[in-house]
């Protein structure tokens, strides 16, 4: 698959090393291939969306990037370095932050304890709490609540707050909108937009193009483990409907 997802902005600065580049990457689970040679580029400061129906390989791509699964072929390049085989904790430590599907928070810990877990990059707990409350004021009243008892939207806010507290260089979001009310999704994507405006690169996965229309610079349509089309989310939307219908 050779389709390029570079936005016009990215083309304007050809000398820039992509923050992330997947080159003909193949990967799978227990010998069953899920990604059949994908190419993807995320330039510094760019917001890239991967769109596609269930089972297309979107989450697998993110897991691969975060080091949770290893490629069977191809190159995973981060800031110009081949990082095939890098450990997920090493990638997280340098600022590649994955917010997984299902939020990935510690359900049995309080909100404050969840935030404390993110002090591994040397940022103090107080500062992390302040940053989190600035991004999500609602969390201020919930600091001592056990996070498993929060609503889905609040849990997603906590997951985002934890991610943002580490000052990520690349924020990787897996179906932020899953199981949430449209209003909550809008609120979360407003924050994503603010984060993107501050220069953080974002790679996100969604099932619906409309959700990411105002956020993403470019989008890649993924179907059955292959990237079939790249462009603006608006251009991808029609193709996405076809993909859902198996066309």
């Amino acid at each position: 698959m050779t389709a390029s997802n570079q936005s016009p902005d990215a083309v304007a600065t050809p000398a820039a090393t992509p923050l992330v580049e997947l080159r003909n990457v193949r990967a799978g689970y227990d010998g069953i291939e899920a990604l059949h040679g994908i190419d993807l580029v995320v330039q510094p400061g760019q917001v890239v969306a991967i769109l596609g129906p269930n089972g297309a390989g979107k989450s697998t791509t993110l897991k691969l990037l975060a080091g949770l699964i290893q490629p069977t072929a191809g190159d995973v390049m981060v800031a110009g370095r081949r990082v095939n085989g890098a450990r997920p904790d090493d990638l997280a430590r340098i600022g590649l932050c994955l917010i997984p599907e299902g939020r990935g928070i510690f359900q049995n810990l309080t909100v404050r304890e969840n935030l404390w877990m993110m002090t591994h990059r040397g940022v103090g707990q107080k500062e992390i709490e302040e940053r989190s409350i600035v991004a999500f004021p609602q969390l201020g009243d919930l600091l001592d609540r056990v996070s498993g008892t929060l609503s889905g939207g609040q849990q997603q806010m906590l997951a985002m707050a934890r991610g943002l507290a580490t000052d990520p260089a690349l924020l990787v979001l897996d179906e932020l909108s899953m199981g949430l009310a449209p209003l909550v999704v809008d609120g979360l994507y407003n924050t994503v937009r603010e984060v993107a405006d501050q220069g953080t690169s974002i790679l996100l996965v969604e099932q619906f193009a409309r959700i990411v229309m105002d956020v993403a610079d470019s989008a890649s349509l993924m179907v059955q483990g292959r990237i079939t089309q790249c462009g603006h989310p608006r251009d991808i939307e029609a193709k996405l409907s076809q993909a859902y219908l198996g066309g």
Partner: protein
Amino acid sequence: MIDNPERLEQFTNEVAEMRLPDTRSSRERLLLIGGIASMALGVIVTIVAYFVSHGTTNPLQQRDAIVIALIGLAVAIVGSAAFLRYSIAQFLRFWLARNSWEQSAHTDRLVAALKQED
């Protein structure tokens, strides 16, 4: 498109300095295999030394055989230690992951029960 050059530079430097684990995991595996090989070699050397000492009445040769047997024993002990160290490390990693998963599943059940009670 806005970017953040300072953070980007820091990230690039950290990626460049990042130690890739391929070498570490292959070293661990090498030491594990080395441990098994040393264990086997040590035992073989000790057995050979035993037969050497039995095959002669010359006390000098018998003392040489005792020294060889002791070296074999030492090699086997070092090999066993390396094998235990690296196989236990693998087991503990698995145990930690399993423990974490079980704790999470237990919490899920607890939260579901509390929600039901509400």
